[in-house]
């Protein structure tokens, strides 16, 4: 594990040093943003819709009795912004984006395409890693913002249709304990998740060995490790920022 962390640190440092090759990575950035962000919006929105519905229903089930029903809005808003929006989106994208990056770069490694780049003195990190990492850092918060908005919206509709709540009630709960830092916190987490998922995917893809089997193994490890990293980071930010 220590060796893995060391390799990850080395790759991160190499990625930072590759920023100077703007002409290499800038041409690929928009393409990676589309692959990592735009293509991930449907799965993120799908997860957010059902998360909002479940949150709303479970909140009403929990608050039956002494707690007023407008606290459904409080719970849906706070939970989507502080926890489920960034974390579920991060986990979904770690499976989709992290696996995709690891498989793509692993295949390039086992087919010696990366070696060919190095042979041609073309910076492989600036060409393969940096666009993906920057795209992840940019697009993870974007997808997370959309997921939070969709999740709150689906919870709102659920409260109106299934819980016999009114819009003023739900909005009162939504605004009751809202603080702008809630959104900042969500973006900090999403950005860090984007960085971790893409760098871990790149790390396992870059160090793939053993042909097709190695590619599959790297992909699996990338998903597992990035998911664990997301959960660890989630706790880290909660401890340090809240």
């Amino acid at each position: 594990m220590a060796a893995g962390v060391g390799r990850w640190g080395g790759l991160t440092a190499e990625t930072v040093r590759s920023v100077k090759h703007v002409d290499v990575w800038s041409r690929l950035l928009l393409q990676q943003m589309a692959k990592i962000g735009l293509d991930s919006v449907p799965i993120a929105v799908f997860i957010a819709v059902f998360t909002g519905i479940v949150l709303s229903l479970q909140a009403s089930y929990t608050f039956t009795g002494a707690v007023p029903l407008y606290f459904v809005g409080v719970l849906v808003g706070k939970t989507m912004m502080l926890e489920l929006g960034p974390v579920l989106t991060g986990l979904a994208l770690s499976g989709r984006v992290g696996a995709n990056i690891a498989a793509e770069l692993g295949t390039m490694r086992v087919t010696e395409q990366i070696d060919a780049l190095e042979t041609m003195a073309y910076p492989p990190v600036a060409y393969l890693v940096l666009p993906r990492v920057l795209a992840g850092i940019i697009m993870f918060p974007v997808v997370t913002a959309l997921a939070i908005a969709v999740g709150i919206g689906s919870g709102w509709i659920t409260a109106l249709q299934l819980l016999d709540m009114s819009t003023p009630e739900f909005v009162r709960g939504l605004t009751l304990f809202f603080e702008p830092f809630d959104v900042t916190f969500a973006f900090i987490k999403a950005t860090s998740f984007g960085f971790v998922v893409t760098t871990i995917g790149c790390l396992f893809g870059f160090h793939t060995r053993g042909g097709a089997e190695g590619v599959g193994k790297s992909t699996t490890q990338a998903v597992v490790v990035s998911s664990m990293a997301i959960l660890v980071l989630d706790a880290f930010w909660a401890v340090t920022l809240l």
Partner: protein
Amino acid sequence: MNRTREALVGLVIVVAVLVTTFGVLWLQGVTWGEPQVEMEAVFDEVGLVRAGNAVKLRGVQVGRVREIAVDPGGELVRVTFRIGEGLTLPEDAVMVLSPESLFGDWQAEIHPRTRFPRVTFPEPQEADVLPGHALPDISQLTAAADDISESMLVLTERIGIAFSEETAQNIASLIDNIEGVTTQLSTLVEQQAASFAEVTDDVRQATQGIGSAADQARQTLERVDEIIARDEVESALQDLSAIAANMRGVSAELEGTNREVREMAEQVEATFAKVQGMLETVESGEGSLGRLFHDPVMAEELEGAVSELQLLLEDIRENPRRYVRLSIF
């Protein structure tokens, strides 16, 4: 990469930024197009109120709390809030922070100061800054209730210690005594009520008497007024003067009579003294009468002489010519 995908990437980013921006502003309570004014209030402390809490006037939300900061001196907390422009605040308005519900949400209400006569508000130096006060929250009230319950528990324990079986018996006997005293008091009250009725009758009669006396006095005074009016007083005074003169004459006569009576008494007293002396002489057997009283023979002779003298007088009355001889010339 075709331009459509590039546009979609841009669109997704723009949508996410717009959703985030407007969502945050909306959740913060920012109103678009409605002019607002920013005001401040100062507090000793602000409880659990936070930026974004509702500002209410007469129970209606008219704005939101924007910022909370401790004054540079550290003695006051300054709360900045925004309300709709054109709102007329109550005269001598104050801001009161209070829990909006039992679940930790607070509100800032604007009231006239007269609604809180017992509250001491901090007085801000600026004229347009409202004085404020934070009411205790549910936790403070609960802590106070906890103190009260502990005091009640101590009190209950002390009562339990003091209220032994002997105390209960004493209290029972005390209650019996009180019942007896109450019965006696009710009897006394009934008696006193009867007496009171009598006294009341007497008082009523006395009052009636006083009333009739007052009538008579009034009539008398009216007569006096009439008499005064008819000038009879002067003649009555003259009569009184004559009576007084007569009385003085009578007094003088009485004084003379009194003097004569005194002289007569003195004479009588002297006469009695003489008679006393004579009687003493007689009793001592001195003199003719003494001897007469003490000598039976002489008394008998005297009695016989008296009888003879009576006979003589009768004879003289019947036959005067025998003993008296009248001759003229």
